[in-house]
Every structure is written in C-alpha cells, then in structure tokens.
C-alpha cells in the first residue's frame, strides 16, 4: 500500500476530517481536524488494511504564531504493514484542548501527560492528566518558546540549606 493509497483510504471513510497531507522522503504526514482526531485514530487502528496499532510517540510543537499556535503530533506504526504514519492536529493558544486518544491506544497515556507537562496542551477525557516530569506545584510549561531556558526564578523550590 503506497502513501497515496493510505490517504485515499482514510479520505474515503472520513472526508471531512482530513485537512491535508504531505510526504517527505516517503514519510507520510496527515493533518487532521482537531475534533475528529479520535475518529481518525479509531479508523486507522481498526481498518484491516491499515492497522496502525502501535503509538510510537505523541508530542507537541510550539509553532509560536498568533493563530493555531500548537501542534500535537502522533507518530504511529503498523506492525502489520511495517509502516509509519504521522498524524498532526493544530490547536490555538487560548483554549489548547485536544481530545485524548487513550481510549484508542492506552499507550498514549504517558505521552499525553508529557505533552501536557511540557506545552500545556490539555487532553480532554484523559484518565490521569498530571505532570510527568516537573513537580506538581510547577506552574509553567518549559518547552513553550516563551519560556526562558534557565527557568523562572523561584518557580521551583529547593530544600532549605
């Protein structure tokens, strides 16, 4: 199955949900409408010709632009086809909420927690959306472009000397 066939296959089933696709050195990336990510995820996982059953990684990107500032990237793998697929979802800064895909791939649980911890993107319906790297009381999101590399003074507590 070629990349074009994969896109056609998903488009035939969910024409409204696919906003675009691009190919770079045979890597296929599909831009998905935010509210339809769960439906697309369910389809690419369960369709007998695709079977993208393994979620390699879910991560965030801060594009640092006024509109649609953040991007959530889902890297999938099909053990059946031995192929990778990348899904992308764009989300704005004022209400950065994306539906969770933990109902489709339980392995996305910690990846989504990491994305929340680093970028502040919430995942609606996530069973356990806590920080995973930084302490619970930390109030910032370190991988956002406007976060200074050396951190914000006094934002992290140390034991008293």
């Amino acid at each position, binding site marked *: 199955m070629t990349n074009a066939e994969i896109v056609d296959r998903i488009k035939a089933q969910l024409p409204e949900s696919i906003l675009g696709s691009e190919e770079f050195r045979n890597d296929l990336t599909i831009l998905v409408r935010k509210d339809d990510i769960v439906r697309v995820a369910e389809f690419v996982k369960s369709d007998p010709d695709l079977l993208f059953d393994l979620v390699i990684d879910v991560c965030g990107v801060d594009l640092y632009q006024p509109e649609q500032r953040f991007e959530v990237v889902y890297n999938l793998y099909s053990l059946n086809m031995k192929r990778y697929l990348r899904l992308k979802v764009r989300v704005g800064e004022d209400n950065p909420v994306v539906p969770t895909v933990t109902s489709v791939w339980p392995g996305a649980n910690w990846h989504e927690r990491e994305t929340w911890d680093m970028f502040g993107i919430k995942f609606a319906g996530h069973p356990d959306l806590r920080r995973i790297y930084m302490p619970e009381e930390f109030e910032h999101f370190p991988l956002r472009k406007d976060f*200074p590399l*050396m*951190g*914000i003074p006094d934002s*992290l507590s*140390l034991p008293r*000397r």
Partner: protein
Amino acid sequence: MPMGISCCAIEMMATASPRFDISRFGSEVMRFTPRQCDVMIVAGTVNYKMAKVVRKIYDQMPEPKWVISMGACASTGGMFRSYAVVQGIDQFMPVDVYVAGCPPRPENLLCALLELQKKISNESVIGGGQSEPIPPKRPTAEPTGQPA
C-alpha cells in the same frame, strides 16, 4: 553513601574496584543505607525534583557527616545550564569537598577523600564537627593527568 545519580557513578564504582582500590585509604565500606553512613558522595546531575530526595537522604545520615560533591554537574550544574538542573548542590546542602572533572577520574575522587580526611583531622570534637574552615591548599582535587 554512594549517591550515584548519573555517569559520575561509573567512575565512583571504578574507584571501588581493585584497580584503584578505595580501601587503601580506609574508606572502602560503601553503605547503601544512610543510617550507616558518614560521607555522602553526590556523583551526578541533581535536578530540582531529585534535590528533595538527596536532601532527605542527607538528613537521614547520623552526625557527624560530610559531603563530597563529585564532578562538574553536582558542583555547578556542569553542562546542564537548564531550568531543571540545580546549578550546584551547595544551594541546598553543605559541601565539604568539590571534585573537578566531567567525570572526574578515580584518582581524583581518591584525592578528594584524602582532602576530606585532612579536613576532618583539623576539626574539633566539641564544635559539633563543624569547626571553622581551614584555608585549603587545594580547594578542589586536581586531575593527575597520569593514567594508572
């Protein structure tokens, strides 16, 4: 207390191995419970989340107690100029000897141990183990430059 947190711990293990043999200097007994320790060797990068753990283990050690800060990361944050890494463990606990290196060679750690023994021999018993600091000839252990 071998507080091995990252790659410096490998050199610390090498220090305990027969080739360098830390027991030549009367300090071979590495204890893995803080209750039986008097020196903590902090060997590695300490981030803010880990700092609370390091401090807690230090607090569990009985007095008198001393700390060796091993390597660039523990002493200054090292190459990790980052929001997550404590830029020197002396921000949250007292340190007696700093060891330079990334990671320090085992000879370097042994040198630090001898410096600490020198320091302890000048401490008074009455002052609660915390006598006034003597000006050290060498503030940190120098690399020997010679492989063993």
